[in-house]
């Protein structure tokens, strides 16, 4: 039966193969249909094979100019048909964010390559998924695209862990996300970084926008350019140097030390008041409730956000073109921090009169 998985098939962009050989050379050996030279450089950097000290990261993912990349790395064990190859990585680029789907798929492709030593097999698997949405795996069953829904990907991150690590300070992250600010997160281990950062956009569930997520960025010009092309972002770095780059963030999260700092130039915008305290309490309460799962916590937070937004919208409707102005806000005599917050939130939600 022909199973064309809707418009999702257009989501995969390319598949590539990086190998590390006995000469300690890391090379792009194969790709289909094509990967631009710039992207190839970036992916070589992300692939852990270029590092001198080989710390094998089985699966990393990230974003570069709205292209998501997913890299699975495998260490070649004897006996094998692959001569002179010590490690290799299978890279899949796509338009959508779905780490689980592409992790499973790339694992299947890795196993195929280890078994046959021939990239043509990878290509066959890729084309099969592209055209039919299904790929026969030699080992355990087959890989079906439709098993991996994007909503599941969005909800796979654990908000409860975030709240348990930061407690009340989670409200800073919430505020920053709502106001579309720039958050930078630092952790020396990339796996921890990926796990933490992917959960954050769920705090602004009403937008369902994971394009602000750049979970794995290096301090390199082109990658920073790609970062700057978004107004607000959640970016993860493994390089401790990022602490000194205050030009890159409004909020800095030091994950191993569990510290959140708001940079000087953003302090005024991120001023928080009674409203924030209330929301913060609510988030912490909901997350600490052991009966409620992650999904429900996210739902609770989104309900609360909806409340605030509804208020704002109702305010706006009184004005011209259903747009809000600062004077209208001032008439309500909110406390100054709340007024500031609502004003900026309106701008973030496209409710402000220009």
């Amino acid at each position, binding site marked *: 039966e022909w199973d064309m998985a809707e418009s999702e098939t257009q989501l995969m962009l390319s598949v590539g193969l990086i190998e590390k050989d006995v000469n300690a050379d890391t090379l792009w050996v194969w790709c*289909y249909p094509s990967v631009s030279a710039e992207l190839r450089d970036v992916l070589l950097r992300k692939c852990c094979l270029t590092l001198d000290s080989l710390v094998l990261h089985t699966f990393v993912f990230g974003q570069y100019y709205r292209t998501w990349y997913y890299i699975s790395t495998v260490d070649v064990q004897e006996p094998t048909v692959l001569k002179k190859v010590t490690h290799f990585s299978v890279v899949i680029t796509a338009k959508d964010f779905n780490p689980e789907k592409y992790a499973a798929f790339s694992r299947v492709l890795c196993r195929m390559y280890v078994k046959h030593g021939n990239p043509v097999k990878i290509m066959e698997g890729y084309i099969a998924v592209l055209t039919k949405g299904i790929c026969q795996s030699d080992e355990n069953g087959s890989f079906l695209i439709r098993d991996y829904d994007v909503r599941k990907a969005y909800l796979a991150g654990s908000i409860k862990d975030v709240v348990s690590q930061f407690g009340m300070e989670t409200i800073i992250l919430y505020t920053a996300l709502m106001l579309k600010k720039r958050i930078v997160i630092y952790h020396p281990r990339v796996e921890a970084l990926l796990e933490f950062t992917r959960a954050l956009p769920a705090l602004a569930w009403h937008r369902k926008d994971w394009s602000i997520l750049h979970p794995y960025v290096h301090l390199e010009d082109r990658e920073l350019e790609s970062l700057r092309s*978004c107004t607000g972002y959640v970016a993860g770095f493994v390089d401790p140097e990022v602490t000194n780059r205050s030009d890159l963030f409004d909020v800095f999260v030091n994950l191993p030390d569990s510290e959140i700092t708001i940079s000087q130039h953003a302090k005024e915008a991120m001023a928080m008041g009674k409203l924030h305290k209330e929301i913060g309490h609510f988030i912490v309460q909901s997350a600490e409730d052991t009966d409620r799962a992650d999904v429900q916590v996210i739902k609770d937070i989104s309900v609360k956000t909806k409340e605030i937004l509804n208020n704002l919208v109702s305010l706006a409707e009184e004005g011209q073109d259903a747009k809000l102005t600062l004077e209208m806000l001032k008439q309500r005599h909110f406390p100054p921090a709340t007024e500031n917050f609502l004003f900026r939130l309106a*701008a973030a939600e*496209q409710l402000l009169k220009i």
Partner: protein
Amino acid sequence: MEEVDRILIHSLRQTGTDIDDDVQSIKQFSSELIVEAVVRCLRVIDPTLGNGLSPSLPPGMSARFRVGMSLAQACQDLGYKGESGYQTFLYSNEPEIRSLLMFLVEKLPRESAEALDQPAGKSALLQKAIAAQIKTQLALPWLPPSCRLSLHCKTQSSGPCHSFHAMQLSLPYSLKAPTKKQAKGRCNFVKEYWREYLLPVTSQPSHHASVPASLLENHASELSAAQEWESEWNSQGLLSRLTPEEYCSRKRARLQKRIEEQLRAATQPRPDTHSTTRSTSDLTDLLNSFGGTTTGVDILAKGTRFTHSEKFTFTQEPEKAAQQMAAAASILPSSHQSEEDLKAKQEVEISALQEQLQQLSVQMEEVGGDIRQLTVSIHQVSDELKRRELSNSEKEDTVRVKKQTINLLPDAENNLVKLQSLVEASAKRVVYLASQWEKHRAPLIDEHRRLKELCSNREMESSRKLCEIKDLHDKIRQSAEEAKKKESLYKQLIAEYDTLPKDVSRSAYTMRILEIISNIKKQKEEITKILSDTKELQKEINGLTGKLDRTFAVTDELVFKDAKKDESVRKSYKYLAALHENCTQLIQTIEDTGTIMREIRDLEEQIETEHGKKTVSNLEKILEDYKAIRQENSALAAKIREGQV
């Protein structure tokens, strides 16, 4: 014995004794010769002892006697352990004379007192010569100029001293040809110049006095340049794996570039206020920027002129400033107004300024608020813009796809099937192309990896070889130094050997000594062998005697026991006893014969020695001399009696 005599005769000849050429051995020495030899030896050994004695024997017997006694005494004083008296000299015998002369010759002082215990090299010799010269010159007393002799003028006046003034010399073949082509090109001209026109080095400097200085300078600079090149080549040149010419040319290019950069940077116009002071410190800065800190220090030390001029220009400045202050003070209006007016004026001013301040702060706040609002709206607008752009591109894509679908829609079923088959076919073709590509790619990648491996192996190889080359260089250098040292040592020893006297052949002596040593060794072996043989024999004899006694005792007892009863046994007993008796006598006789033979040998030896002592002739001589002395005595007595009368 002949060699010993020859050596003795030779040594005695060296002390000045006049020995005839045909005298080959001590036996042929006459008393006169003996006395002369001894006296000359004594003179060499100890001049105080020997100068009182005359080498020739006086004719008178008593004088001879006296001479003999004094000589004997002198020899005793020197430490001669053997017996010596007047008889050793006047009535000599060979062995005594030989031992005495050997003792004296050994006492002779060795010639090479100042032995060169350390072989000195050429430079050490030169230094010693210089030291000796200076010593002699210093030993001369200083005389005031008027009293100086001409030969002192050279060393004691300051005239001959010249200051060390070196000039550039031009030597042929000292310039390195950069390339072969250039060398050929200027070959002829330059060679002609060197041949025809170039003055010899000694006439090149303007003053003759600066010739040694110039030569020293030239040599020192060449030597240091060569050493520097050696060290640089050994450390960096080899590592760069270039040929020497390439390395040189690269270094030159690098230095040129650096100089160009520095000059260019220095000539950039600088936006400075004090142009006058800048020009003087420009040069120092420029020069400083060329080299490292060392050059900077030198230049700073020399730059006192610059700093002087700087000081001068700076001292002008405070004067100017003072002038300016005075002018400004005069401009200020001289206030004759009262204090209250002043205060009021000031207060008005203050309030006006405060109002201004307030207005400005209000303005600033407003502006700040505006800025904030505008920033926020900018955010919103840019966000909106980005979103719209994205959605635009997405919509474009969807529109395109939908357009194509619409085109295919009329014949939906067929088209669907066609599309399916098309997709399948394309997929198959793409896979086929991929496999084709793989056929090409795989060998290329393998080749790449193989070559990379080769390359890294070669790198390792070459670095290993480089190490080896370095080691070899070190070894070469060491061996060259050793060879030089050994060559100089060899030359020096050859020179020494040439100066040594050739009349006495040392090799003959050494050969003979070695022969004697081997002979002695052989003799020692033989003696030990004989001793062991003798011991063996003695043991055997002892054993046999013991056995004999025991056997006899046993037989005796046995036979005696039976002898009491039997007559024949008694007779045999008697025979046994007689036999034993006779054999014992025989043995005794043999032993006695042996002893007597030994005595005969000893006596024969004694006779030989006595013969050698020529005692008979000596006795005759003594008798004669005794008679002569008696005659002399009587003559003297007669003279005395005559004199008394």
